Structure formats: C-alpha cells, structure tokens
C-alpha cells in the first residue's frame, strides 16, 4: 500500500471475484463534513493505494462512518475533496458506483423480497454478467448458500449482516468499504470477515472502520480519527 500513482486508462468496471484490481488509489485532501456544530468529520488528509487493507479507528462520533459514506459517493463533503483514481485518472460518479462496495448498517434490504431477489436486483441493475451465478457465489461466500429464498425481512440481524457483506462483494469492487463488519456476527461470522478481508487484500483496496481490535489487526495500516484529523499510523 503506497501513495497515489499517475497513469493511463480509465476504470470501467471490476470483474471476477478473484481478479486483481491494481492501480486504485484513494486520496483525501482536507476532507471533512459537518452535520451540525461540533458533529461530523474533522478535516483529514491521507493517501492510500491498493491493493491492501487499512483500518480507521476512533471514538464514537469521530466520523468513521461519515468518511466511508463520502468515499462511497453517498455524501458530498462540506470541506475538502475525496479523489478516487484508477491508474491516475479520477473516477466519475457512475464509475465510482461500480468501483466501490459498501457494507454498513445503513444498507437495508427490501424486506418483501428474498435474499436472492435482493442481490439479483443489484446484479441486474449493475449489468453484471451471469447475475444468477454471481448471486449464488456471493451468498455462498458469506455462508448463506441455500438461504437465497429466505425473505430479507425474516433474516436475523447476523444473517442480514452477512447479506450486507455479500452485497458489498457482489460486483467484485476495487474498493471495499467495511463499516463495523463484525457487528451482529457470531464468532464464525467474525472469522468469515477475517477470511474475506484476507482474500481481498491481494486484489482490492479495503478500508475498515472499526473499534474492534481483531478487525483493526487485519489491516496493514491503522489510522485513528481523533476529532481533529487523522492521527499517526498505529
């Protein structure tokens, strides 16, 4: 994992789950967001290049989830900028949507649809090749094989978290954003998170927002949000 490179062709999509996505870089320049006075993300600057794993830690309210939402393109920062590039070229919103996978508690599913139908919708909307195969593969990876017919609304919170992981991994993103990925998961689920991060470290840029030591130990670099910017790597 190193600083952002400069280079050639635009990133259009990211492929098969095992395929490596090199040359992806993320740079935050004085990036901050303020919801209200004293709340939000204080300006931070950092540069990361994939593949590799980084963890962001910090007390509640320090802006970890906000940072991930900005990187995912869900939130426009009120300060600074967040640049996601592939081989030196910035990604437009559409390409960013294809490049980023987010697993966060804010991702909810259509309760009246089954787990398979939810992911099938996402695969179809993203225009993925072999959507059924992708969905089956993604569900199997998170231990939900055979549960594709279960209604999303009837899944336990732990199984729903696994479905969020499958959703984030479905399109084999170049940047995988995991916000407290172990929440609601049992020991087996937490081990699964470890395995998935280990699988992804060679092919994608993984960013984990967490205060769980087991999760932050998965990272090669750890940043701490202290309320006034990123602290020194731990």
């Amino acid at each position: 994992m190193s600083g952002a490179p400069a280079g050639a062709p635009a990133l259009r999509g990211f492929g098969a789950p095992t395929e490596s996505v090199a040359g992806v870089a993320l740079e935050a320049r004085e990036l901050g967001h303020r919801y209200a006075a004293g709340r939000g993300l204080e300006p931070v600057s950092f540069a990361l290049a994939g593949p590799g794993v980084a963890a962001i830690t910090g007390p509640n309210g320090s802006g970890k989830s906000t940072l991930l939402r900005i990187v995912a393109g869900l939130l426009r920062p009120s300060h600074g900028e967040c640049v996601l590039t592939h081989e030196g070229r910035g990604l437009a919103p559409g390409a960013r949507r294809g490049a980023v996978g987010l697993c966060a508690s804010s991702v909810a599913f259509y309760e009246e649809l089954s787990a398979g139908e939810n992911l099938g919708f996402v695969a179809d909307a993203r225009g993925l090749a072999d959507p059924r195969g992708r969905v089956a593969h993604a569900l199997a990876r998170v231990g939900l094989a055979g549960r594709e017919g279960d209604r999303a609304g009837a899944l336990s919170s732990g199984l729903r978290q696994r479905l969020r992981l499958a959703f984030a991994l479905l399109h084999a993103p170049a940047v995988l954003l995991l916000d407290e990925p172990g929440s609601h998961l049992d020991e087996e689920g937490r081990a699964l998170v470890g395995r998935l991060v280990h699988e992804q470290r060679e092919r994608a840029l993984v960013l984990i927002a967490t205060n769980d030591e087991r999760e932050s130990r998965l990272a090669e670099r750890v940043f701490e949000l202290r309320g006034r910017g990123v602290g020194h790597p731990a």
Partner: protein
Amino acid sequence: MPSASSSSAAAVWAILRKECRSEWRTRYGLNAALLFAIATLTAVSFAVGRLGDRPDLLAALLWIVLLFASLAALAHTFVREVEGHTLTLLRLTASPTSIALGKLLFNLLFLAVIELVAVPLDLVLLGGPPLHWGRFLAVLALGSVALAGTATLVGAIIAQTRGRGALFAAVSLPVLLPVLAGAVSGTRAQWSGAPVGAELRLLAAYGAAMLGLSLVLYDHLWEE
C-alpha cells in the same frame, strides 16, 4: 475485468421489475387504488344514475377518480425507499437518472392498470356519448404521462423531508392543476366531437417538461 458499471437500460429495467415485484408482494398501492376507483364510481352511479348527457361531468369525474386513486401510490414509490431505509442500497446500485426512469415507468404501468379497470367501469356505470377512440386514447395516454411524471417528481422531492404528508398536498396541488385542466378539457372535447389539439399539446409539453425537470433535478435531490 468484466463490466460492473451499471448500464442505464439494465438499471432502469431492473428497477421497474423490482418495483413490480415489491408491489405484487405487498399490494401496497394497488388494492387501495382499485378499491377507491370502484367504490367512487359505484357510489356516484347509485346517487345520480347515468350521465350520458353531461360529458363535462363525466370527464371531470373520470380524471378525479384516476387522480385520487393513483396519487398516493405514485408519490409513495420514493417515500417507501426512505421509510424502508433502502435508499442507500438503491443509490449504491444505480444512477439517479436510472432510478427516476425506473420509478416513472413503474408509475405509468401502475396508472395503466388503474385505467384498465376505472375507464371501462366509468363508461359502463355512468354511460356517455360515443367515444372518439383515437382522441380519447391520446388524451388518456398523454394525461397519464403528465400525471405520472408530475407525481413521480413531487414524490422524489418530498420523500426525504419531514412532514412529507402535508408537503405533498401543498406541492402537488399547483403542479397537478394544469394536468387536470388539460386532461378534463380534452376528454370533454372528444365527447363533444371538438378538436383536442390544444389539450394534447399542453399535456405533451407538460409531460416533457416534468420529465426534463426530473432528469435535471434527480442528481441533486438525494445528495446528503
């Protein structure tokens, strides 16, 4: 690297199918809309009998039924995403334009289903002069596009606001009045054998304006 950037057409189609599947599973709007249309037309039929000699009343009644039967459901396509907390998933999956077009197509389909029931029922229960089918269907189609386009846009605007119920009425009334006026006037004119060109132009222009406005605004509506 196979492509994962969402093709717009694929996304629109996927959203349309998802909306249909969700509506079919929950019957959130369909049952209420059909019940309203059938109950209203039946009640008016019992109260005043046939209105064959009053095309003005017939035209107004038809569009009032279509408007109130469908409006809540049309606007709710976005509210449902906010209340079900699924907007994040949707925004991570498809572009705002694809979402808008998918929702608009679903609303048009929804309106067509309501019309398939309400229009024949209106004609059978309340009577009416012979239809000029070409003009009638043109007014119905363009009126539906304008109605669905307007309701979809208003639904998107109010979806993330507090007090959206009150806001919905306040925002929809002024923007829907031109649609209602054009549709009622066109429907009445075709029953009277008069030309409907002006009404068709109004509805087409209004529908196109709403669609254009939607495509421009949607990118900004859901920014946090």
